[in-house]
């Protein structure tokens, strides 16, 4: 029934959020092979985050099935845990634990790989600490290791989130706009880092991006979302202006919605 070689397999997945009939994912059907470096494009609200979050089960999709590394995603904890161990997520809103230091935040990425008691007590080995520091260094924040996460600038928080995801030593990385708050140079560095991990360790990377340039530069495959549908799925090099129009076309979106302001007044 499914390609056992695929890292990610969406099988006619549809979803809408409670209290809203509009489909945020609309019959998404796609496969992402192991080791692919895939970028997701789409307008604000197109469903990119929902798509990414559905792969770790935080969005419990209403229809269809999702397979990660050949295992079907099922919404009970042992199954979810098993799948999540191999999937690292970089969140659009960072989701750092504010009252912990940055080092602790990064170490949190390793929790699932260390024994339960040590995990609960927060006893990390020197090696683990060193690894976490190295990761912080890789994102340029070694000096901020012992600062609290809420004392960082936006871009710094984003980078701690990236370091945490890398600490997880995953097989798949899902990154939701990982460079949105970063300057061009740092963005480039982070993309480079992800690419390197992708190549060297054959890790599947799925990134949602708003910078088409970056997507073209780093992405191999490009998936375009519009209104919850996959409208474009192509190789980066072949992305045409027509494709971009398909993804970002303004008129299309407007068709589906009803803008009469008067009606809205309570």
């Amino acid at each position: 029934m499914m390609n056992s070689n695929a890292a990610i397999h969406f099988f006619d997945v549809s979803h809408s959020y409670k209290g809203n009939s509009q489909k945020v994912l609309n019959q998404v059907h796609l496969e992402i092979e192991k080791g692919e470096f895939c970028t997701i494009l789409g307008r604000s609200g197109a469903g990119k985050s929902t798509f990414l979050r559905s792969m770790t089960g935080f969005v419990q999709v209403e229809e269809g099935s999702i397979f990660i590394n050949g295992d079907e995603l099922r919404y009970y904890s042992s199954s979810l845990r098993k799948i999540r161990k191999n999937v690292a997520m970089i969140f659009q809103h960072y989701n750092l634990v504010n009252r912990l230091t940055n080092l602790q935040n990064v170490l949190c990425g390793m929790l699932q790989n260390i024994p339960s008691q040590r995990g609960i007590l927060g006893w990390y080995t020197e090696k683990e600490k060193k690894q976490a520091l190295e990761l912080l260094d890789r994102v340029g924040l070694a000096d901020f290791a012992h600062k609290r996460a809420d004392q960082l600038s936006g871009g710094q928080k984003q980078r701690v989130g990236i370091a945490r995801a890398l600490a997880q030593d995953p097989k798949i990385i899902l990154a939701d706009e990982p460079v949105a708050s970063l300057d061009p140079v740092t963005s480039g560095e982070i993309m480079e880092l992800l690419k390197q991990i992708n190549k060297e360790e054959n890790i599947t990377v799925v990134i949602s991006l708003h910078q088409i340039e970056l997507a073209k530069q780093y992405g191999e495959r490009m998936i375009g979302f519009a209104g919850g549908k996959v409208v474009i799925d192509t190789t980066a090099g072949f992305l045409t202006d027509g494709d971009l129009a398909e993804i970002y076309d303004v008129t299309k979106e407007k068709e589906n919605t009803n803008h009469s302001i008067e009606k809205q007044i309570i």
Partner: protein
Amino acid sequence: MEKKSTLSKILIFISVIAFGVWSAYDLELSPMKFIAGIPDIFNLIYRSLPPDLSILSRLVTPALRTLEVAIWGTFIAVVFSTILSFGAAKNLFGSNKIIYGLTRGILNTLRSIPDLIWALVFVAAVGLGTFPGVLALAVYSCGELGKLYAESIENIDPGPREALESTGAGSFRVIRWAILPQILPEAITYTLYRLESNVRHAFILGLVGAGGLGHELIVSMRLFRYDEALTIILVIIITVSLTDFVSGKLRQKVI
């Protein structure tokens, strides 16, 4: 639908007001009477002045004893209520309706039974003394803390928790590193509030028996030694303020 809900809102509003007015009448609430009575309050205060500070030395041991009882009672309560709160929080194990119902039920029962009665129950078990007092406070506090902990768990920002869950880490690790840091300031507030509350209850209920400050207060009140009672109340105020201060300092550290 919009209209209907407005109507039902108005109905609710009217019935609340009606109940308020009726019950104020039923309870014979009367601000005028209160204002007229203010001189009597001053008279009472006047009669308890100056506080009889000579009893202070006599209060040291009872106060210490009471504090010990409160600390142990709170400590035991913290341990058990933490466990129960996991089940009473809808966004943790409480997502299972049976567990939720069961733990909420236990917590509700624990705090519905007055500490006086818990004291009686434990006196039957372990005899008179301070031990039943500790147990009574522990059980009662467990009911209160468990509820408060659970609801502050329900209030957390789900983001960081999702982040930790997305690593595949087990529930307890997630609780430790995503939930605990988030509820820490509330947990400190509740725990020290409860400690303080236990100090006060142990004082007042005489739960500690002859050794406690509560006993002294009751005796003073019964003998109408208001000046002594005032001194004891001052001691309580100082203890409470100290706890409040410590709570504030601890919270400042973590907020």
